[in-house]
């Protein structure tokens, strides 16, 4: 995972928090709901393992299950339509779904993001220091592009 991924996740999480804290700033109820779902899909896509698979389709399926669990027997439509007569329930339910998705999208990934960011910072510092350090050193060549032979025999 790269520094770019880490920055993207930070941005998405911050935007999700803003939408839940002040939904009216982001348009109609349906608009907020769809923006949140899209952000969660992008979040999942960004955190996908780099194996060529795009793991974001699950967000829609998870959302349908989530709605079915909270509003049994509800027709297949958006939560904002289903809660048209109880609008105060919409944002708390969306906040709950966002929290569940963050957990489902693996806490290990946020550890990886953090690792990647820390690694990037140190590599950047080293890149700036390297010319000076190598000048100070008697020999800048520590390793030689030639493997050390080891025995082929098995102990």
């Amino acid at each position, binding site marked *: *995972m790269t520094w770019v991924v880490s920055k993207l996740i930070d941005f998405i999480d911050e935007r999700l928090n803003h939408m839940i804290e002040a939904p009216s700033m982001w348009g109609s109820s349906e608009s907020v709901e769809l923006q949140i779902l899209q952000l969660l899909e992008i979040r999942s896509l960004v955190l996908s*393992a*780099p*194996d*060529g698979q795009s793991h974001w389709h699950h967000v829609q399926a998870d959302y349908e299950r989530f709605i079915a669990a909270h509003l049994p027997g509800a027709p297949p439509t958006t939560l904002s339509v289903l809660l048209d007569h109880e609008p105060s329930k919409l944002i708390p339910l969306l906040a709950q779904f966002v929290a569940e998705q963050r957990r489902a999208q693996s806490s290990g990934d946020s*550890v*990886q993001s*953090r*690792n*990647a960011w*820390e*690694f990037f*910072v*140190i*590599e950047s*510092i*080293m890149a700036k*220091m390297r010319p000076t*350090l*190598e000048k*100070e*050193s*008697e*020999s*800048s060549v*520590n*390793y*030689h*592009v*030639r*493997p*050390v*032979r*080891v*025995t*082929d*025999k*098995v*102990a």
Partner: protein
Amino acid sequence: MTRTKGQLQVDFLKSVIAANGQIAKANFSVERSLGPSNPTYVLCLEQHGALSLQELPWTPELEEFLLLEHPTTMEKKDEERERFATILGNNLRTVEAQFGRDYAQAVFVDLLKDHPEYNLERLIVKSPTPTPSRQSESYLACRRFLEHAIAGLQNTAILKLRYPDEPTTVALIGEALGTVLDDRFHISLREQLFPR
């Protein structure tokens, strides 16, 4: 043909041994910092009762001589660990030159995940590498090289350096691999700079 620095080091040691000299004691040092690590052997040579100290910069040729031709253990276990880490780090560097740094490191970490006997879980979690596809030819070639480097060093430690064929030797290789992970991914430094 010009002889390399490493070949000259080996020629020198061979000449000492041929003249009834011996390596009485061997030490190994490395600087763990942001700069070059300058791995160095300090060899105490004994010839006709006289002792002399020789400080020799690490080279693959010198290492092969002290591993295979004239197996020599370090005075302290910590030094042996640093020496093994230098060998493993060098061999990882060569495979990085062939496959690219990020890819080789990803395969290295992926390989270590399959070896719980080295007890590296804590460091693997802190190593930011993607999971490589295990089906590709590059993966297989890279992994084969690294597996040989690790298993070969362990076998060399047992067969040549006469370390016991016991879990303590596996643990020593595991510590050396941990040093390589720490060095490559700046894990100790990150823990100091970014405490969690």
